């Protein structure tokens, strides 16, 4: 074979490309890199009060913990059977068939798969069924980054005066592609009323996909709120993401899922590598679902600690956006960034800056003692 004797230099010339670097897809160079900062250990003797990531401080059900230690014997096995068992349980829970459920490595993977499947650059060769990404501002922004990796245009539509999604403007901005609706919304803890959302889903053309992220579904108790899972049967363009990271207390284990029509799931499935959810998360998720106390306790404890901290903030004159989640967002009446920093110095971590609301702070509802520790540090900082 002649080619064997060709040197690398000759080869580069042959290819007409002397480039020393591999061709990275241009869209990727514009994408955001996820942070890789380590979890900083607290100074000796200090405990960090972590109210920054909307985690459930009580963790998963004791049944879930036991199911994980019981699974040590299968830790060396690929987790296909356990994935199947969880899919079955979720299908039953949501009144759909197993082929309408897709598991993810956290609901983040579901968001990523939706971006990969339904968004893309609007070029002449645009693949059918893809388009831009429309999301609220502020909202949970992970999906914006995934859409940018795919080279898609992203449009941010400000929340309306009551901190709900401005669905009319979002619908108008959609060019096929995907509309992302986080309900209840992170970071504002606000909901988009059920009638408005139902109307929007009815009116949206089928070429535009609608992803409703219901990560905080279990905490919402307003009469104006509902899950849109029951609407899926009539809407092939509707997808719902759920997670085990919030009320199920499994953020560290990484498990979430998507519900949609079978054909919609089938469009996403080829974009996913296999075995993305680990065996511990799979068995823990299933046991969590079987423990009714997990939800009842999670709701009650969250609501008690939230009422307590809201009462204290009211006394200090800080108005909150009505919360339907395990966190609150309140008006600081001054820039939040220096306050975040000052609290951090006192070993209290709160939510980051959301540029659309620079004078608001997002605060996770922890245990009552953690809320007391926050309030003590907060009073010092604000004094």
């Amino acid at each position, binding site marked *: *074979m002649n*080619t064997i004797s*060709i040197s*690398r230099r000759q*080869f*580069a010339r042959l290819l*007409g*490309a002397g480039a*020393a*670097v*591999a061709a990275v*897809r241009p869209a*990727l*160079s514009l994408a*955001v*890199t*996820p*942070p*890789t*900062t*380590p*979890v900083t250990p607290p100074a000796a003797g200090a405990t960090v009060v972590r109210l920054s*990531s909307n*985690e459930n401080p009580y963790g998963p059900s004791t049944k*879930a*913990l036991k199911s*994980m*230690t019981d699974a*040590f014997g299968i*830790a*060396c*096995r*690929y*987790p*296909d*059977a356990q994935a*199947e068992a969880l899919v079955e349980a979720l299908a039953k829970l949501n009144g759909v068939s197993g082929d309408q459920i897709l598991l993810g*490595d956290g609901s*983040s993977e579901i968001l990523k798969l939706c971006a990969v499947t339904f968004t893309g650059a609007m070029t002449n060769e645009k*693949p059918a069924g893809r388009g831009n990404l429309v999301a609220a501002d502020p909202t949970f922004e*992970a999906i914006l980054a*995934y859409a940018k*990796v795919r080279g898609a245009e992203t449009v941010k539509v400000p929340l309306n005066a009551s901190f709900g999604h401005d669905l009319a403007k979002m619908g108008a901005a959609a060019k096929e592609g995907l509309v992302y609706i986080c309900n209840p919304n992170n970071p504002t803890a606000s909901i988009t009323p059920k009638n408005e959302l139902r109307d929007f889903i009815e009116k949206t053309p089928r070429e535009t996909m609608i992803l409703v992220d219901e990560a905080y579904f279990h905490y919402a108790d307003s009469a104006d709120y509902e899950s849109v899972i029951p609407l899926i049967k009539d809407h*092939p363009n509707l997808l719902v993401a759920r997670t085990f*990271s919030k009320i199920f*207390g499994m*953020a*560290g*284990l*990484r498990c979430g899922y998507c519900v949609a029509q079978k*054909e919609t799931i*089938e*469009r996403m499935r*080829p974009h996913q*590598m296999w*075995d*993305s*959810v*680990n065996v*511990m998360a799979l068995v823990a998720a299933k046991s969590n679902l079987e423990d009714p106390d997990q939800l009842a306790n999670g709701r009650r404890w969250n609501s008690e600690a939230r009422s307590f901290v809201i009462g204290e903030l009211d006394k200090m004159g800080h108005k909150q956006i009505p919360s339907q989640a395990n966190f609150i967002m309140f008006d600081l009446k001054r820039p939040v960034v220096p306050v975040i920093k000052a609290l951090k110095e006192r070993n209290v971590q709160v939510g980051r800056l959301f540029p659309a609301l620079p004078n608001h702070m997002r605060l996770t509802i922890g245990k009552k003692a953690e809320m007391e520790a926050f309030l003590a540090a907060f009073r010092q900082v604000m004094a």
Partner: protein
Amino acid sequence: MSSIWDLANPQLRDLRVYEPGKPIEETARELGTDAGHIIKLASNENPLGPSPKALAAIRAALESSHLYPDGGGYYLCDALAAQLGVSRDHLILGSGSNEIIEFLGHAFLDRGDDVITSEHAFIAYKLVAAIFGARTIEVPSPDLRHDLDAMIAAITPKTRLIFIANPNNPTGTLAGQEEIDRFIERVPENVVVVFDEAYFEYLDDPPDTLRFVREGRNVAVLRTFSKIQGLAGLRIGYGIARPELIRVLQKARQPFNVNGLAQAAALAGLADVEHRRETKRITDEGRAWLQEQFAAMDLRYVPSVANFVLVNVGDGAEIFRALLHRQIIVRALKGYNLAEWIRISVGTMEQNRRCIAALREVLGNRPG
């Protein structure tokens, strides 16, 4: 709307979905038996399980189940960097090394691009090419070994990635150092070469591919905790490449891709040299014994350097089914275009003996 395929990427239409080894639980259910009676030698898992140190670390990490994991895997990357003699910015963690294959696709593949790999190579490469609309050029390997010269000859101006599983799954063959050195010298600089070294730790005299990374070439090396570390269920693997290439791959990673238990288990397992040594010992012993048995049975097999052996049984699918009825799961390889063969993972000696006894029975019963 006529068919969903009108909307889907056309290259996905003919894509064969990855078929994992048949799970023990499913087999037990079908046979109406207890899962404890089933022997699974189908997915190249470690029959000894993880290191006891790794399990202890998981137990300790359970109490932080509710906290998001350390996104970049700071401590694990530090430990890996020290062990490999590179700096931390040469590393990226994946939810299994298959996730890093996906990152490579996100980073480098678009419609119309080419990916080169071997015929009979791990099917993940073909799958990732299809996801991003790239074409896979499968270089023939008539003797079931990588033909690196032919891979060089197959390079086109559209070639972005070359995948070399070394040792290769499912054939168990190895490309040696000299062969690889010669190959790397001739690969154009704008092509990224990926050495998938999932079975690296089973080798007596492993070729050094990290030297290419240190030289600043466009080479990525993939390793996993699913094999010798016995953590297949936990989903964790890693990639090693020059820092600039790692920075590119990081962009395709979701912030919390690797769960906290896997990170803790991997870190503890890494320190357990004894567990790795014992796993390698039983693998070497079991593999040698299996190969002796195949020779004694006049079966053609491919001498393997990994924790599995490829053996020609005439009709792989039929023998797979017959073994399944005897409660033994192996892997049929029609999807790899190796219909006459089955792949048997090396188990404990007791499992190996039961497998061979069943195989003898099955082959003896086969109508002439």
